[in-house]
């Protein structure tokens, strides 16, 4: 390599260096800083970095030392689990169904696609506001929203409190159901777009070959197409899964923590305890746990993607 080329390489590196430094500070530096806050005594407006070990984490997990915080955090974790599983199920199922339907060489495909995908273009805040209104239960005598609709079509028995109902089935809060519906409404189109791109990437010859071998249309899907879509299902699980682990905007706008924390999640708990309660150390501990949950999903995915040289 001559000196000119080496010089050019240095320029290239210098051009990306500011971005690397900014991310090193704003991502890794700040995470480390939050980690330090999470093992400190900072519990009030003024910072207090006195080291207290893992006691802030202990208070989130142990009912004896943590009291209401531990109760709340335990509910949050169950809610996150329920929300994630239910949300992934709806998105993958309907995303796949819509993609397969659109793959049948239908007329007006562009219009349908636009309709299914438009919620992705709007804010979770708008989604939260609108679905809050749709699922607002009203009262027994003055039902609102979906309850009013159910009354109009004679399905009085199906009325319930929606996101205001603190009922649990085991550890699972049914108030999360309307929230999951709103989230799925927003993200099903995204899953559909991923599957549709996958379906379009499968060469027609492959389908033809299977048909020539005597496979029916559903047989082609089951034995040829579905196995080829597996990597897409995997990506969708990771992307949607990590979104639901850190969900905040939608729940904060639509329901907040809900009655008896029925719709509470770690993101909402962290926000309230930090910025409304000034319990900085506790908020930091919650956010570090959220980060660990997300990292558990994302880091293997990043490693996998780069090893495969698959575009993310």
């Amino acid at each position, binding site marked *: 390599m001559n000196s000119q080329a080496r010089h050019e390489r240095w320029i290239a590196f210098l051009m990306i260096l500011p971005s690397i430094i900014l991310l090193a500070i704003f991502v890794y530096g700040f995470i480390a800083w939050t980690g330090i806050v999470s093992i400190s005594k900072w519990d009030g407006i003024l910072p207090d970095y006195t080291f207290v070990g893992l006691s802030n984490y202990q208070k989130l997990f142990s009912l004896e030392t943590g009291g209401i915080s531990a109760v709340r955090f335990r509910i949050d974790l169950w809610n996150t689990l329920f929300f994630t599983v239910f949300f992934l199920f709806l998105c993958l199922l309907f995303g796949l169904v819509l993609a397969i339907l659109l793959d049948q060489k239908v007329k007006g495909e562009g219009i349908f696609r636009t309709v299914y995908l438009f919620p992705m273009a709007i*804010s979770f805040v708008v989604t939260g506001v609108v679905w809050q209104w*749709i699922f607002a239960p009203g009262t027994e005598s003055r039902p609102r929203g979906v309850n009013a609709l159910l009354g109009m079509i004679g399905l009085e028995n199906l009325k319930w409190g929606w996101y205001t109902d603190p009922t649990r089935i085991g550890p699972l809060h049914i108030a999360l159901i309307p929230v999951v519906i709103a989230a799925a409404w927003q993200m099903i189109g995204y899953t559909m777009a991923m599957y549709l791109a996958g379906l379009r990437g499968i060469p027609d010859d492959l389908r033809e070959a299977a048909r020539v071998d005597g496979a029916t249309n559903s047989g082609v899907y089951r034995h040829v197409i579905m196995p080829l879509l597996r990597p897409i299902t995997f990506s969708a699980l990771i992307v949607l899964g990590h979104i639901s682990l850190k969900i905040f905007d939608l729940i904060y706008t639509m329901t907040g923590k809900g009655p008896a924390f029925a719709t509470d999640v770690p993101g909402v708990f962290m926000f309230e305890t930090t910025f409304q309660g000034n319990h900085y150390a506790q908020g930091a501990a919650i956010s570090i746990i959220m980060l660990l949950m997300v990292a558990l999903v994302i880091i293997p995915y990043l490693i996998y993607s780069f090893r495969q040289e698959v575009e993310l």
Partner: protein
Amino acid sequence: MTARFNPARFAVYMLLILFALIFLIPVYVLLGSSFKTFAEVQDLSKMWSLPSSINLESFQAAWSGIPEQGLRGLGPNLINSIKLTIPATIISAMLGSMNGYVLSKWKFPGANIIFPLMLFGMFIPYQAVLVPLTVTLSRIGLGGTLWGLILVHVVYGIPITTLIFRNYYAEVPNEMVEASRIDGAGFFGIYRHIMFPLSLPGFVVVIIWQFTNIWNEFLFAVTLLQKPELQPITVALRNLSGSQIKEWNVVMAGALIAAIPTLIVYIVMGRYFIRGLLAGSVKG
């Protein structure tokens, strides 16, 4: 192909239409409620019926507020969103383009480790950086300002914009770059004469993606901007819907105002929007 009735295809269309109608329910509610008067929206028996007349008073109230009721209008916040989104989008697109160029055509030793480390930044729950971020911004004099929020969106936008441009530039043949280098072009010459002129579609994808995400963002905005007159529209909308006096027609009109800019971009440039989406981008 025969024109006779095919039950399977009929079922496909019926299902597609059914799903489309379900997806449009919130739009119906949004439009229906925002064109109603307050009196009409109060009548719960009519929640699902169309407005009896097209009434624009909710939009008027959502835009300029109702000062005598202490209701702030969203108009100034929409302007804030524009002032925030446009510079942040342009700066992060330019940074992403430069980074993508370096990472695709000027790989330095260690790039294969640094790039995934950069990408990790777009997946993290931002809760894990919020407190240090607030402290740092006020230390450098950007606390509680739109410029502070612009900086934040630029920085946390680096991973996705870099990723999209890196993958985009990877398609430019290396031979073109080599040929230009033999002709004596340097790092900037190649960028200016080869990469940048080819970048237009890449810029469209990135700009649409960043515009939509920054416009719709809530967590950074609600944490970093306390003054109501500085907040972008998402925060103002949430305050409007969380206020005690709940005039649903006004809230719905506000939601529509907040959604319209990104919806227009989506409808006009849908194809590029989907490309950004599939580039591995995520809503956080």
